[in-house]
């Protein structure tokens, strides 16, 4: 009796990790829900850009009737409709053909009178009034509205990636447990290889999706003539990408670990909720406190919120040159530590079927 000639075995860990990651990616790309949610995300971004370009476009000048066009001399943002008499002007105002009318009135200090239908034409009144000279002490600072918008953009991208891919990886871990395919997998590959492959596969997908969204945003902003915004966002976006990569791997590891603690898909929320909180809290903090330098300053160093807060500070110009490096270093160390925690929970929980594994068992083993 002779054993069959053993086929050569390809056993490199890197090859196995790549295999697992590849399967993870293919499984996701085949899932209709993933494709649909990705398409929706792209559409939302596209809609945002188009909406932005419409509102940013210069509005049409209001039509103003004037019995004496010289009354509106020096005001070039209105379209003057010349009229003969005050009565004629009033008719046009009533019919809605013009927004308001300006007629001479010697009884007023300005020597004119404004006629409007039912609402006060504030814009016109401002144009006709004297404004005192204004001196801006910090003309280069980012206006509050734009700061909010950028904070929101960084926040939503990181939040959306965490909220959509995080639970996905947890579910993928539970699926292997609930279908018991895990026993076959573990007989073939070490736990760490499986863990690394799953985290890597999901991360690559998340990065690809974000890259796609970014590419579309850049093209969209350029095409719609909003490229000025791009220039000021350049460096902060590069930093954001670096923070995003590390931050996402951190979250993915925690999701994979905590997912392994349950045996049924229905229960996955029970153990992943604390990780979800780590995704949600920074997002809401940055939305509500983006104008509070102290809160944003602290958040830019806390690993879970740094991917949102540090790029925001860079955009606002409130960070020293060394600060992003320091924050990135802290994030990198935390990521390494939490990958170890994720792997530990994963290894300790993977083959415990049935009841939910307690945190104590998951961490102590």
């Amino acid at each position: 009796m002779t054993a069959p000639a053993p086929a050569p075995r390809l056993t490199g860990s890197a090859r196995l990790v790549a295999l697992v990651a590849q399967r993870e990616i293919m499984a996701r790309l085949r899932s209709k829900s993933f494709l649909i949610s990705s398409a929706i995300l792209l559409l939302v971004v596209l809609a945002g850009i188009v909406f932005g370009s419409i509102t940013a476009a210069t509005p049409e000048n209001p039509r103003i009737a004037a019995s004496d066009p010289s009354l509106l001399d020096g005001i070039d943002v209105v379209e003057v409709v010349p009229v003969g008499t005050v009565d004629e002007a009033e008719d046009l105002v009533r019919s809605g053909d013009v927004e308001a009318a300006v007629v001479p009135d010697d009884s007023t200090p300005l020597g004119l009178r404004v006629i409007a239908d039912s609402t006060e034409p504030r814009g016109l009144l401002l144009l006709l009034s004297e404004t005192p000279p204004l001196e801006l002490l910090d003309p280069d600072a980012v206006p509050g509205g734009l700061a909010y918008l950028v904070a929101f953009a960084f926040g939503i991208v990181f939040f959306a990636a965490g909220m959509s891919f995080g639970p996905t990886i947890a579910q993928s871990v539970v699926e292997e447990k609930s279908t018991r395919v895990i026993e076959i997998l573990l007989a073939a590959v070490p736990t760490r290889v499986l863990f690394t492959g799953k985290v890597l596969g999901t991360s690559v997908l998340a990065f690809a999706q974000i890259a796609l969204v970014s590419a579309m945003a850049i093209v969209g902003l350029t095409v719609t003539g909003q490229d000025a915004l791009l220039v000021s966002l350049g460096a902060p976006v590069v930093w954001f990408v670096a923070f995003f990569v590390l931050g996402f791997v951190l979250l993915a590891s925690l999701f994979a670990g905590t997912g392994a603690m349950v045996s049924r898909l229905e229960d996955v929320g029970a153990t992943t909720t604390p990780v979800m909180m780590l995704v949600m809290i920074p997002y809401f903090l940055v939305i509500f406190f983006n104008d509070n330098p102290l809160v944003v300053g602290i958040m830019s160093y806390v690993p879970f919120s740094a991917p949102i807060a540090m790029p925001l500070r860079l955009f606002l110009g409130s960070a020293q040159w060394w600060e992003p490096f320091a924050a990135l270093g802290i994030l990198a160390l935390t990521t390494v530590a939490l990958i170890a925690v994720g792997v530990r929970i994963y290894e300790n929980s993977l083959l415990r079927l049935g009841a939910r594994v307690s945190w104590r068992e998951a961490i102590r083993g």
Partner: protein
Amino acid sequence: MLEIRNLDKRYGARQVLDDVSFDVHPGRMTGFVGGNGAGKTTTMRIILGVLAADGGTVTLDGVPLRDGGRRRFGYMPEERGLYPKMRVLEQLVYLARLHGLDTATATRNARELVERLGLSERADEPVEKLSLGNQQRAQIAAALVHDPEVLVLDEPFSGLDPIAVETIVDVLADRAASGVPVLFSSHQLDIVERLCDDLVIIADGRIRVAGPRTALRAQHTTLRYELLTSADTAWLREQPGIDVVEFDGDYALFDAADEDAVQRVLREATARGAVLSFARQHPTLAQIFKEVVQ
């Protein structure tokens, strides 16, 4: 040879495996038999390294098994499991590659198995769309697709119709014939009896019997004979050294005290009429099992 030595496993205060030792020889089918909760699945999971033992060793050809050493094993877990949404062929190729085969060999093996197990028409369907019987075939294919050098199969025949059982039996016999040690557990003692070369019986976490099936049978075979004649067999009751177990006119089943008593009965029977059948009764595996476990 796969050697299992002194395995111990406790869950809290409960001892589920107690000094479990046996061998699985190359080229031989070893049947692993025991009641529910006797420790079969636990033993198999320890062999495959998906469960850690509290004590004892598992060696293959004298080498202790470590991480990766089981990549050459084919395993069918008790709880069936494949990716439900992955297609059959694709899944087999993936598992073969995960066990270290290159893509070309993996694909060739997967196609061959799918064909041999009668799954060709279902090869491109997701596993969840298959009937239970076909899922079971796919599961067997998953255990075999990477040309394993050792096979460990937990209840490979449960849930299969008789035709499928025959197909699987053929496939497994082929693997054994090519020199692979095959360990399989089953509740279907008739299949085990027909299929296995060696037998391991476990009860309450302890090995009761382990060895070649023929030796075991010889050991448990008694001087029990069956007699069918053309005449009445009531005279048997009067024979010295004979204990009649069953009696029905021209048919009798009896235990003899020694060989001489057997020969006397045969002579007497031929003298009284035509002997239609005179045969020694071999115990079935079910009978041996009952006896060993009690």
